[in-house]
């Protein structure tokens, strides 16, 4: 193919070009013509348009286990010798890959939402002070979690090599999701007679942000441990939403978050099945992480705020509100253990004692 194209290029009448660049049109060199690894690709859009996964055809769809190239060479394009490297440190597929990345990328784009104009803000009605405080405290907590997610993703994003661009593309959507969540939660806290609450002490935020050994380690804490809990919190908040605005925000955050967890779990599965030591490392990290998570669960701010929301006020929080929150935590731990089992990580036997107590009720 390359030869064919080169000969076509050579057939261009170069004699007719003016060579002196100061006088007119410079002679084109056309030394780029014909330089392709694969030509003749014609991907046809399907019923859902032309999706990222659709164009993974021929050599363009070959995702290698190790990506040697430290430049921004698009996968499948022709390289150029002598290009100085960039500091891409994640170059093994098992360090970041998830099969679902391209699909999640397109889904995120289709499911975008706009807090300013799509949330029915006029449905907000004045709430009793204790409930408004609880809602605003949860907005503060969830904002800080979203901020941690945003910061850890953007810390790793530019270290991921181009051989795995689908993951980078998907994480770009996750970055935007996090920014939108920060925005939506702030708007909710500041639009119904309340305000922001007190910041989190940040025990789990800290372990996520300090997991600098690799992206997979960050994913263990960000999605498997904390993300699984956040899903339950959002589900709980949605079930107890006080108005359409809150219901809209929580349901859309859940949609976003579901994609994030799908990537996270899928990546951990890929890592654990393609890297010998991965499951054991994850198990070690989780033993440490559970202790921090347990300490955060016991701190009482989130549990009390959720109990107040579930109980319809402080009085109800002391009875059925807290009971409902404890069920939420139990459900989270059961989810967490189920995913660990899927990943081949045995956490049941050495589960943190506080987690065990929540399970026992």
């Amino acid at each position: 193919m390359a030869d064919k194209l080169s000969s076509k290029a050579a057939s261009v009448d170069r004699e007719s070009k003016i060579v002196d660049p100061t006088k007119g049109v410079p002679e084109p060199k056309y030394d780029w013509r014909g330089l392709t690894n694969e030509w003749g690709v014609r991907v046809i859009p399907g019923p859902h348009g032309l999706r990222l996964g659709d164009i993974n055809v021929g050599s363009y769809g070959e995702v290698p286990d190790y990506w040697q190239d430290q430049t921004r060479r698009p996968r499948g394009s022709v390289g150029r010798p002598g290009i100085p490297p960039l500091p891409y440190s994640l170059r093994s597929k098992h360090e970041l890959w998830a099969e679902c990345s391209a699909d999640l990328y397109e889904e995120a784009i289709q499911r975008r939402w706009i807090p300013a104009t799509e949330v029915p803000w006029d449905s907000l009605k004045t709430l009793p002070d204790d409930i408004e405080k609880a809602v605003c405290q949860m907005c503060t907590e969830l904002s800080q979690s979203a901020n941690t997610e945003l910061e850890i993703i953007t810390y790793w994003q530019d270290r991921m090599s181009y051989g795995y661009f689908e993951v980078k593309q998907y994480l770009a959507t996750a970055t935007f999701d996090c920014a939108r969540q920060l925005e939506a939660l702030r708007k909710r806290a500041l639009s119904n007679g309340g305000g922001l609450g007190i910041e989190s002490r940040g025990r789990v935020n800290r372990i996520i942000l300090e997991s600098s050994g690799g992206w997979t380690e960050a994913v263990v804490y960000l999605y498997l441990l904390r993300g699984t809990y956040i899903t339950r919190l959002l589900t709980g908040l949605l079930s107890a939403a006080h108005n359409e605005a809150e219901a809209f925000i929580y349901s859309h955050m859940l949609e976003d978050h579901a994609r994030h967890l799908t990537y996270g779990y899928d990546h951990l599965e890929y890592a654990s099945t393609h890297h010998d030591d991965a499951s054991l490392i994850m198990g070690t990290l989780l033993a440490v992480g559970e202790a921090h998570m347990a300490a955060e669960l016991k701190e009482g701010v989130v549990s009390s705020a959720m109990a107040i929301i579930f109980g319809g006020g402080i009085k109800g929080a002391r009875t059925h509100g807290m009971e409902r929150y404890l069920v939420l935590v139990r459900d989270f731990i059961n989810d967490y253990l189920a995913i660990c089992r899927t990943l081949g990580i045995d956490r049941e036997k050495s589960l943190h004692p506080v987690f065990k107590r929540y399970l026992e009720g």
Partner: protein
Amino acid sequence: MSEATEMPREHEIDTSWMDNMAEWGITAKPGKRGLTLADVQVGSYGDLPKVSDNMTGRPRGSTARPEAYRVGAYQVHTLSEIWLENAEYLYEEALQRQWSSATDIPWHTLKPLPDDVEEAECLLCTFFNEVEFVAGDVPARWIARTTPDYLEARNVLSAQVMDEARHMDVFRKRALANGGGLMRMSGATSGFVGSIDLARDFTEMSTRLHISGEGAVLTMFRMGELFGQNDAEKTMYRLCAQDEARHVAFGVMHLRCLGETAPERREEIECYLDEAEAQLMAGQQNPAGRQSESSEALAVLLGGGSEYYDEGHKKLLVIRRRQLKEYMKRVISAGFADRFENGRSPVPAQYAATA
């Protein structure tokens, strides 16, 4: 700590945090454009610290806890380093103007092109596939380094990361959808000193990325009507231009803000502009620049085939002229007009030479 009666002690309701809420009684109201980020900049929540002491990642305006971990080693923590006046509007606009390369491009309008034209388009797409994610990778890195007290600016950068992902994606799709393929990379975005990647200061990075780099690309995208061969390509360039205009606006407004609030940095900025201008027409990063392969491809596209290269090249000169003119307008708007009047900048002479 309040008394619990029905629950075990460890599950008592703690209401002490209720006495530590931040400013209370805020009721931001939606305006004509909904409830925007600007609308919630009320009371103390709208106060932007000139120097941020927020090292814990707390939302701006929330109550600080003395025992919180200092997990945010934020390099960018002074307002002048990153701020711009219209961040909240750029962010809201980005949300409103998101688009999908899968479904918003009329892919069915692609028709087989002559080999030389298809090759030229594919070379350009390879170039953009490569460079667009510089503009994704680099802003992402700076989000993690910036205090959340400047959330509006960070949110604009998050939107840019999303935009650039979509650009990378749409150009890859185009290259693989019409009988062509990817071609040879340019290497224009590698780690040379003075490149966008290696800047260790946000404003230095923004000057290179937003003002000169994306500025040149924006002019080109705006001319997409001229070199797009079908509605799919014209739509692609038009939508990319719309996004790129926001990114350039970020850079212009930030530079203006910095020039006004940190005058001691003006000479430093002039030096970044000196470097950028030396590369404006000569560097590989401008797809219409004199040294780039992509400018040959552009001339082929503008002419409608390699046999009309001369005509295409004349149109390319119009693009270059427009790039120079628009670059000067941006720098003037950013408050650095002097350089075009005092002879420091070579751009006015370059512009005059293209007349």
